[in-house]
């Protein structure tokens, strides 16, 4: 059973959004459900710090042994940090999707956009959890 924490926001594309101490910056990763569906992650291709993405734009790709998937930017924003650990240990995405397996930190262009994301209950309903 996939873990869907109650203190995060979600997208229909299986990204989660975690708030940080800085109200303008969020952490983005993929959900426990998504990593389970992908299987053993072998590579994560992430953007560079400073790159800007529109909402729903592809900001990276994630590769498992037999599947590859695009990563979609949940809301418009600018990348302020990327998880360099994933280079050497991409399996962090499998082991700690909500912890050390995070992908990018994003400075949100319009904080109000966060309101359009899915609440945990809505995401759970989507995946049938």
């Amino acid at each position, binding site marked *: 059973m996939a873990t869907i924490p109650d203190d995060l926001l979600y997208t229909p594309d299986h990204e989660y959004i975690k708030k940080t101490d800085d109200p303008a910056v969020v952490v983005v990763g993929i959900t426990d459900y998504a990593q389970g569906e992908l299987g*053993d992650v*072998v590579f994560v291709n992430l953007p560079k710090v400073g790159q800007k993405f529109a909402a729903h734009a592809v900001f990276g790709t994630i590769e498992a*042994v037999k599947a*590859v998937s695009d990563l979609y930017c949940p809301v418009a924003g600018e990348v302020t940090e990327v998880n360099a650990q994933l280079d050497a240990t991409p399996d962090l995405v499998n082991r700690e999707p909500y912890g050390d397996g995070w992908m990018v930190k994003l400075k949100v262009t319009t904080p109000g956009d966060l309101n359009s994301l899915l609440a945990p209950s809505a995401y759970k309903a989507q995946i049938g959890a």
Partner: protein
Amino acid sequence: MPKTSTPAAPDAPVAARPSAAAAATRLFEDDRFDSRHLGPRPADIAAMLKVLGFSSLDDLVDAIVPADIRLKRPLALPAALTERQALDEMRTLADQNQVFRSYLGLGYSDTITPPVILRNIFENPGWYTAYTPYQAEIAQGRLEALLNFQTVVSDLTGLEVANASLLDEGTAAAEAMHLTEAVTSAPGPHKYFIDQKCHPQTIAVVKTRAEARGLETIEGSAAEFQFTPGVIGALIQYPATDGEVQDWRGFCERAHSAGALVTAATDLLSLVLLEPPGAWGADIAVGNSQRFGVPLGFGGPHAAFFATRDQFKRVLPGRIIGVSKDRAGRPALRMALQTREQHIRREKATSNVCTAQVLLAVIAGMYAVWHGPEGLTRIARRVHHLAGVLAESLRRIGLTIVYENFFDTVLVETDAKTQSRILQAAAERMINLRVISPTRVSVALDETTTPDDVRDLAQVFAGRNTLPFDPMACAAVLPQAIPVGLARKSAFLTHPVFHRHRSETEMLRYLKLLEDRDLSLTSAMIPLGSCTMKLNATSEMIPVTWAELGRIHPFAPKEQTRGYQQLFERLERALAEITGFAAVSLQPNAGSQGEFAGLLVIRGYHAARGQGHRNICLIPQSAHGTNPASAVMAGYQVVVVKTDPKGNIDVEDLRAKAKEHAANLAALMVTYPSTHGVFESSIAEICRIVHENGGQVYMDGANMNAQVGLCRPGDIGADVCHLNLHKTFCIPHGGGGPGMGPIGVASHLAPFLPSHPLVDLGHAQAAGAVSAAPWGSASILPISMMYIMMMGPDGLTEATRVAILNANYIAKRLEGHYGLLYSGNRGLIAHECIIDTRPFKASAGVEVEDIAKRLIDFGFHPPTVSFPVPGTLMVEPTESESKEELDRYCDAMIAIRQEMREIEEGKAVKGNNLLSNSPHTLADVISDAWDRPYSRERAGFPSAATRMHKVWPTVGRIDQAYGDRNLVCTCPPVSAYES
């Protein structure tokens, strides 16, 4: 207990009391080949039909193939020949080819296939009938051979990662351009530079690919070329096509400072002596490994190679063999980074290549194993030395040698009159020289060249039969032809595998050791859906290694290749009749290339009618991943058409999308019978809808084995179709290639078929060349020709009928044990069936992979896994498998079902059972540490047949993720195998 098969009845019913005369006549009847090609005997066919509830094969076929598309007459092909007659016929054709000494070069050199390799690999069904190594546990032999090949390529080119071969040098260079495009960060529009001293056929293929994608190419002289913004990369040849060895360091520096990548098309033997491209700045190296022991074969098949820097490994085209480990921690090889490939990435793939040239890569790798670095160095030095001797002799005669620096190719400048005299003298001695211009001739020497050959050549150039000096005496005073700065300094092939097999006994045993690790058609059925692993008959294979077919240079003059020309004509005519088309091009080297070529033909046709804007390609959801990848390569935009729950194209969705895109509709790509193994009854309507909206229909011929003699793509409404000769027409899979993917087209498309820069193929409005050689892999075409000649029209049709029977028989026998995913009328299927194994995940914790691997314990090669539907197995037995073998396979499947029932009923442990731990190696089952909750006997000998014989997997279930996270694609140090 499963029923066992009844003993086979005699081949033909014996008449009660034949007249003496009739009996005597029969004594002189030769053995018919069709009854050898087919698996089931007549009595078996009757029994199988009974199981299916039909009284005749005709009734069965009538119930399966829609009536409105049936061919209502026999194929108009010559009557069947016996094996002996067909071999005689092929010998007559081959004898019309003339084997000249070839010094044409252009990336193709005569070579000596070491006899131990010739007999034990090239002519050995244990190697050539194997499938692509998707089931790594029973493919460790050829995976190791391919790892050797990658190591050779990586060492000689000086680049970190190499793949396990591509189709030819031209397409490899084109793939390098695609890689360059994929990784560039430069804003468009992009341009690509091609040095004019690349091989002309390579330039042509690269340009075809570039034009299709709308990428501008600039052909010119590298020395003068200025990198301007937008130029993303460059292709150069090292040594150049005219033989010159140049220093490219400055060029690479200029390219890199402009953000462009450099691809070097190169030659492996020259790199034994020359500084490798990776050392002087090239980012990618490509080329043809043919001269490592693979016959010229009038153009192929040969293994092209591709190597690049580690940073580009995720966009490397083709299959890469990588090292990982199995569950017990043993080193284990398998195909790595598969997410790069078209079957996963579909329209986002950077390459559509699928089948490559495994058998030929294995041969080239083994050539290096056999000779080792010292042997290769001796060969390279000899070739280079003789080239130096020739150059010096010609200087003494008074001729001008254009370049001081060369490896094996000497460029001679004369006046036009002298040149024509030289060419005439050469022809008289059965020697082919390359004419580069009216005043320039080049001579490319090779491994087979002897001092006597050099004397002959000197006499040809001198224009007399005696020389005032012995050319070999020039040896003492040769000038340095490889500049000091370009001489190789690094060691290569240091791994023990390249040092250990110098005696023939050791080599023979090494080849046998690897062969025995693999499952090929020599030990069991390989029931891969969509791959048609039928018999590759011995008599079909025999001509392939005849010198009259093998020792012909692809650009030998037409008058020397009359036998080949007749063969092509006959084969084209036969394939046109079988497909119902007007014309055939034999150029594409694999299905993927056929798709690309066919889509280009369609583009050319639209453009010629002022409809060049048509760029939408409709592709059903269920299509093979190569289809969308090819469409994108050909410059189309892919629009996906839905598939209905039964696996058929959703006709209403197709109609809607065809109408929506009517103004820009270019083509539909459709597989028939469908990828789900069903003869869709709406196919004629589907073709009509596409035509009414201005599009052309491209038929993927992967499933042609269900059509031959029963219906024809051309009659159904297709405009183009490719044929996988390595499926339907008996070319062996070679463990992952060679293949051949010729295309047939309707008459309105014939002018747009591929052309070639060096040979006039007569296609007036061609879109260019798609392969390096004009007729693709010419030397394996006799295999398909032999098959067609020996089967004749009736035999070919019978093969289709029996293929359909065999598939339906399997489906019927598994009924009640497994669910069948898709079927047509009356629950019948075409030539393959999809077994639904998804329910077992919930009921027994068993994945499709577990069932596939457990089949290995039963001595079988698993069917296609998770294509076209995840979690399913697709089974295609082909007509060549006997009822006995089909029963053995079905019994295994039923026994596995029983094993799953034990898990379902709690008698076996979820997650620690016969399936989850499969495949079981010999080392596992005889280990003193056996601690499994089931017996060793059930693990290793699950059926009576396996006690007689089976191929044991040499490694257990492989950890795929480990190998992909830690990519190693050259031979690992020996210490890795110590445990």
